[in-house]
């Protein structure tokens, strides 16, 4: 039982090892940079398995809002794909006016984002008109995508 716990701890540790010894703004994918414990050809499958089992995915770590000179609210969502697999997802922004009413717009459509493993991402959305004061963004898994 103790052995199992030790192996599991090792494996979890392995999955968490990104081996980022460079500028974090540059994501060096497995097979591009030098091997790390997590990206080694022997240990990578274990890391990938653990990543899959513990369900690693996207984390959103920053949402920026700006008003363009024309008065349109623009939002930039930034985050990180913690998984050891590419993640493809869709987002849809809904825009709300000053009274909290949804603004009808063709721009409230599902748009696709694809993020490589262990990489940062960001996407931008702009309000359909200057009356937009707030927004809601929803996400879902992107289906029917070529892997």
């Amino acid at each position, binding site marked *: 039982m103790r052995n199992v716990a030790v192996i599991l701890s090792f494996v979890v540790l392995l999955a968490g090892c990104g081996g980022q010894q460079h500028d974090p703004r540059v994501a060096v994918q497995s097979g591009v940079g030098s091997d790390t414990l997590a990206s080694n050809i022997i240990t990578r499958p274990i890391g990938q398995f653990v990543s899959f089992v513990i369900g690693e995915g996207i984390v959103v770590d920053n949402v920026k809002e700006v008003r*363009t000179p024309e008065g*349109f609210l623009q939002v930039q969502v930034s985050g990180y794909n913690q998984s050891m697999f590419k993640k493809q997802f869709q987002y849809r922004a809904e825009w709300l006016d000053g009274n909290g009413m949804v603004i009808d717009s063709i721009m409230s*459509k599902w748009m696709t984002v694809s993020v490589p493993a262990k990489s940062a991402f960001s996407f931008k959305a702009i309000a*359909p008109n200057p009356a937009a004061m707030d927004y809601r963004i929803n996400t879902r898994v992107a289906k029917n995508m070529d892997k």
Partner: protein
Amino acid sequence: MKTYYTTAVLLSLLVAGCQPATRNIDVTNDEGKAVMELDYRDFDKAATDLVQSMLASGVFSKKDGSRYVVTTAKVLNDTMQRIDTEQLTFKIEQELMSSGQVTMTAAVGGKGAPDEMVYQMRDVRDSSKADEFKQSTMPGKGQIIAPELSISGKILQRNVRYDSNQQQVEYYFQLRVSEIASGLTYWQKETLIGKRGSRKTVPW
């Protein structure tokens, strides 16, 4: 004889029962299969992408704060499909007008006047039927506002052999905004929608 009739009726009922039932598409949250041809989801995506870029670029921002008068010129369908390019341009016009930045003209366009009534009423004005109308309600001469900006573009299709079983179809949505007076282009963008699927599917 009776047995044949019964069998035929039963078979036809069975065949009818095997046909998939007609269902309405959930156009807001459609998770249906992708198709090789361009479908409404592709037009929505392309229009959203293009309008977002147009609005973010500030191309429709006029120095005096007034609205630009805009027309949609020719958007060429260079695909193997029969597409009415208004599937794209209508959405874009709608969204640009909702943005409060532009006014679209119905007097001129790439396929002629989008609203022929603009000229039909002028024909009436110059005909003998004009007396039937209250003259103050008739359109006068020199009233139509000329467009300042024009939106034009193209939808392109390229078919590429991907492997022995699959093909790749690339659709390029290209749009530009030009100033009619100077002929200068102030904004342009290309949006790509790519699909891979069976070679047996013919995308037209």
